[in-house]
């Protein structure tokens, strides 16, 4: 075999390995979805998603469904996303319009990147410590607050990146017309609306799937969420607590929760892609 043949053999070999690596992993994606759907379909029924849980867990057979977990998750993630947006949007806009390209702004971006990387169990522990400090019990409110902390860096960094995509000429023109930075923010918000929606959906998706942060703070309960100060069930914890149960009817709840959670997450990521495409109609390019 001469040198050239060897070079081309190496080329073909590596292309094959690369393709294999990618497709084996995507095969795992298919395996995950297949497992969840197969188990979930078997456990799914109308009463499963329309009733709250009664009985079950480690003690005995379960009745009722997982509506309490579905609603609990939606409340938790919804509340956290609204709260995080309330703080995250001003912070991102401030970084962009007031601080611009300064060194300090870069440091703050670094800090938020690092906050993004902190494991959610640490946020959970932190939230729990805060709760002890002010004498709060595991509740929907505590869960929302902790999840909001988890989502804040995601929102800030994604919105910041979105704002960077706005052509700088737009800001320059706006300034040239005599606006203040505050008034520019309104224009930037409108201009980057599709990206904002994407960021919000991303944060919501992270929030609804996050279990470690709500483990200590939101607790778990069989009853429907009815008060900000009471514990609340959530889909991820419904899976975590009920999967290892010896009773098939309790396990079925875990499977059904997994299916619902997966469908929610899939819909969210689909919406993320759609929002990027369809909402950008009214954007100046």
């Amino acid at each position, binding site marked *: 075999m001469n040198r050239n043949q060897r070079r081309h053999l190496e080329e073909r070999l590596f292309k094959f390995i690369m393709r294999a690596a*990618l497709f084996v992993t995507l095969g795992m994606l298919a395996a995950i979805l297949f497992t*969840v759907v197969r188990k979930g379909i078997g456990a799914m029924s109308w009463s499963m998603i329309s009733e709250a849980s009664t009985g079950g867990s480690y003690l005995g057979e379960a009745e009722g469904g997982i509506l309490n977990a579905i609603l609990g998750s939606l409340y938790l993630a919804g509340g956290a996303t609204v709260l995080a947006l309330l703080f995250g949007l001003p912070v991102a806009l401030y970084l962009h319009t007031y601080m611009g390209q300064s060194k300090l702004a870069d440091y703050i971006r670094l800090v938020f990147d690092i906050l993004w990387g902190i494991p*959610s169990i640490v946020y959970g522990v932190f939230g729990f410590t805060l709760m002890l400090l002010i004498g709060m019990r595991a509740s929907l409110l505590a869960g929302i607050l902790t999840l909001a902390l988890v989502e804040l860096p995601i929102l800030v960094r994604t919105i910041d990146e979105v704002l960077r995509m706005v052509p700088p000429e737009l800001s320059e023109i706006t300034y040239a017309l005599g606006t203040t930075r505050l008034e520019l923010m309104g224009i930037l918000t409108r201009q980057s609306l599709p990206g904002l929606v994407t960021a919000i959906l991303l944060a919501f998706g992270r929030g609804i799937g996050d279990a470690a942060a709500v483990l200590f703070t939101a607790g778990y309960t069989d009853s429907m969420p009815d008060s900000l100060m009471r514990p609340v069930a959530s889909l991820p914890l419904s899976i975590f607590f009920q999967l290892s149960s010896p009773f098939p009817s309790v396990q079925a709840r875990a499977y059904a929760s997994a299916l619902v959670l997966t469908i929610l997450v899939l819909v969210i990521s689909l919406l993320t892609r759609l929002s990027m495409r369809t909402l950008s109609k009214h954007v100046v390019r």
Partner: protein
Amino acid sequence: MESIRLQMLVDRVGLRRMVSRHQNRSWRWWKDWIAGRTMGLLTVAASLLIVVMVTMLLDRARPILASNSISSLVQGEVWKPRQGLFGFWPFITGSVLVTLLAMLLSVPTALLSAIYLADYSRSRAIIKPLVDLLASIPSVIYGLWGVLFVVPLVRDHISPWADRTLGDHWSIFQNTNPTGFGLLAAGFVLAIMTFPIIVAVSEEVLRSVPQGMREASLSLGATDWETTKLVVLRKAAPGLIAAVVLGFSRAFGETLAVAMVVGNRVKVPETLFDPAYPLPALIANNYGEMMSIPLYDSALMTAALMLLFVVLLFNVGARSILGRLNREQTT
């Protein structure tokens, strides 16, 4: 009298100077000023969150750090909270081994996939969203899949096979654990979870390598793979390292998916199939009873602190590499 005192107060806080300096500013200007100050305060407060977190965890961990030396905590192998023995060694080795195993599986596949997506694939538009989808799946779903798919696979096929073929020569392949819940299952699940992160970051790094460099290499007669190997990979190396480090720190802090499949036994694992007990699982599994035993909650806070420090260190390192690359690119 009253007005003089007020005057003095105004003078002392410097309000007067400020007011006179800005006397003929418009209301719009003031609105901008107030909003700017408020949002600036908000930004600073939010970015001080890390400091607050570290201080608070340190404060809660202090009781145990005061009564035990750090080296005895880290190297201690006995974990008996009821007797006041807190040795973190099994948990530290558990965390490190699970994460390393996951990286061993995911780094080669993820880097090769990223290279393929960045430079070779013609169907990137279809494949990239699928990889992103992998990133958006919640960790408990991975855990569920681990319990239902990976654990039986390890129990029924991989571990008997490894024991039969390799177990006689290397003790780490001996099948000591018939349940399947253990290091390998957790490493496998974690590998799939870190894959999309490493791919996302390293693909971006690879795509930022100037196209001209590739063209120069190709025009000298190099094949595609030679261009990748000799030009693109060298240029992208720091960024790829950063991607791997980010993947590592994500895997190190991953909690519930690992806790569901790793077996959770307090013992330093000796074989690939042994159960382990990583730090995040320790925290997650014991939050309920930690109030009743003295120093227990302090010990769990120490575990959280260890986790936080490792993740902070790795993240700062990776992010500063990526930040420097970004600046090089824009200037």
